[in-house]
């Protein structure tokens, strides 16, 4: 018997099943297809304005920072002011995501922009979130042709643009939207849920920001309302 057969045989012997029982198969198939929601906290069942406020509050609680701009066209300016505020070089790396490449970067002519994944030499990256979760102040980023994963982890400063149209109250809403985008049972290679900048408390439980990932996480919220 192969290792696989041995493991399955042992599981089935312990459960006293054959794996061919129609009722069990139906229960499992129904759950996978129906993916029923469990307990969803009330906390984030809020009108949009309050949801944005809760999101920003939770990001701050996780040691991230937020700026709110009224239009996508204001994002380059917000990026520029973040860089200047933190005495960072005026250079960013981003993916080819259209939501970023179509922004009027000419308004910040001093910022040097490069595109593609990070090789560890970039200080600042800019990504576009697929979604935000107000419940916990979590950003959801998905990998893909125009959204390199390395940008989320290697640079010291990570700026993430979030459109309030993509801000959900809870995780379940985000998972349902991902299913809508990518199909039932299908996900992109990586879904990164990010809540604040990298940290460690491994030495005497002293919490320190900037372990292996970004030391700063800055969210630029584009709030159309």
């Amino acid at each position, binding site marked *: 018997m*192969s*290792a696989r057969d*041995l*493991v*399955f045989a*042992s*599981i089935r*012997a*312990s*459960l006293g099943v054959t*794996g061919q029982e129609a009722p*069990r*198969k139906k229960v*499992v198939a129904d*759950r*996978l297809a129906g*993916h*029923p*929601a*469990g*307990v969803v*906290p009330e906390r984030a069942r809020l009108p949009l304005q309050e949801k944005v406020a809760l999101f920003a509050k939770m990001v701050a*609680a*996780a040691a991230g920072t937020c700026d709110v701009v009224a239009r996508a066209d204001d994002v380059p300016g917000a990026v520029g002011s973040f860089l200047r505020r933190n005495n960072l070089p005026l250079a960013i790396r981003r993916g080819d995501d259209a939501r970023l490449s179509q922004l009027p970067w000419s308004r910040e002519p001093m910022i040097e922009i490069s595109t*593609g*994944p990070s090789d*560890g030499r970039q200080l600042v990256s800019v990504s576009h979130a697929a979604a935000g979760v107000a419940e*916990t*102040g*979590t950003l959801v980023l998905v*990998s893909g*042709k125009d959204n*390199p*994963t*390395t940008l989320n*982890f*290697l640079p010291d400063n990570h700026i993430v643009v979030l459109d309030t149209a993509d801000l959900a109250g809870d995780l379940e809403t985000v*998972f349902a939207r*991902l*299913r809508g985008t990518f199909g039932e*049972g*299908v*996900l992109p*290679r*990586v*879904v*990164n*849920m*990010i*809540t604040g900048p*990298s940290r*460690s*408390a*491994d*030495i*005497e*439980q002293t919490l320190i920001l900037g*372990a*292996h*990932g970004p030391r700063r996480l800055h969210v630029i919220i584009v709030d159309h309302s």
Partner: protein
Amino acid sequence: MNAFSTSPQFKDNARAALADRELQSALKFVEVNFIARRQEVADKLPEFDALRDSARDIKNHTLANLDLYLEAWEKRVVAQGGKVHYAVTAEDARKIVLDLCRKLGARTVTKGKSMIGEEIAINEYLEANGITPVETDLGEYIIQLRHELPSHIIAPAVHLTKAQVEADFRRVHTHLDANRDLTEPTTMLAEARGVLRDRFLAADVGITGANFLVAETGSSVIVTNEGNGDLTQTLPKAHIVLASIEKLVPTLEDLAQVLRVLARSATGQEMSVYTTVSTGPRREDDPDGPGEYHVVVLDNGRSAMLGGEFRDMLRCIRCGACMNHCPVYHAVGGHAYGWVYPGPMGAVLTPSLIGLDKAGNLPNASTFCGRCEEVCPVHIPLPKLMRHWREREFERHLSPATVRGGLAFWGFFAKRPRLYGLATSVAMRVLAWFGRGRGRFAHLPLAGGWTRYRDFPSPQGATFQSQWKARQR
């Protein structure tokens, strides 16, 4: 063979731990920090207890249908271009990993934190076969430098003081200025970040654990705060996931439920910094990510646990709340338990994985105060399960003759209530008379195990039973 164990010497380990000043000074943080932080976030979420029930039900449902969910998960992994490898034993798992590394021509391997990695002692094995494993979680990195096992499942270096870590960094990072200031955790973290950054970029293979496997999508999920797990799995040419069969949850919705109780129970965070859902290798037009994605699924005795009274233990999501709230863990730390999994969850799991003959002491190292069960996010009845082990130990004649003799002696009286009442009331009176001067005993025949460390108080009045009777009237 599993990782090396000193569990049989638990009593000696515990004695040494109690006398270890550095350990005791490090351990005092556990009780203060973890308990308060968990309570604070639990209080902030009115649905927390309902979520714990939900998490328990999800795990129970998954375990009852584990064969079917495992099949469904495997199908999705393969459909997305990943590979699944089954390992019956720890030995099998090690060989699979080594084989994969060799095929990939790997010389160095970075590692995210993985308790399965510890269980199968993968580092020692890779090293013995010419491949250099580098732990990248700060705590794991520190204990790798010291050649130690983790002393806590989510805070592996919780037994160390910053002075000890400083000494280790100075001993190992000899390429850095000997006069550098390393007195604060901040500078130590910055140093580790610098050293490990190069390792991340140079690694051929990245090995991570998995907090969960999602059947619906064929994904593995890791939950970290440092971001090391993500760098480990993103940069090298292949990502190997070490998982065990009980990590499965059915759907993404189920994942949302268990995530809500995991971080809160573990570190007292609303959500850990990085929760990463990985599905298969780099896609055709992805600009980065590993070219290969392998999952090693370990059984190592778990499928057998499914059939018996220890099935409940397979719900464990490895948050560490039980040890954070355990008075025995607070006193002796994790290393005294002698193997990979310490605290109450270790006391139940370890005998299943390495044998009751080796780990019989662990389920005895409990006062049954019940705090572990009270805080467990999936309601594992840990005291009850420890009691099952004690019963088995007795049945299998594994407990020492003195214990068995003592129990038989006590049992003789316990089965004869009148005789019991008579004997105890006589004994109480005799003890009270002898102890009437000091009110306590420094020495007592047959009670040397007690009086060696503390005085035995002399009885102050009638027995509980006679007092009870008197009150009933």
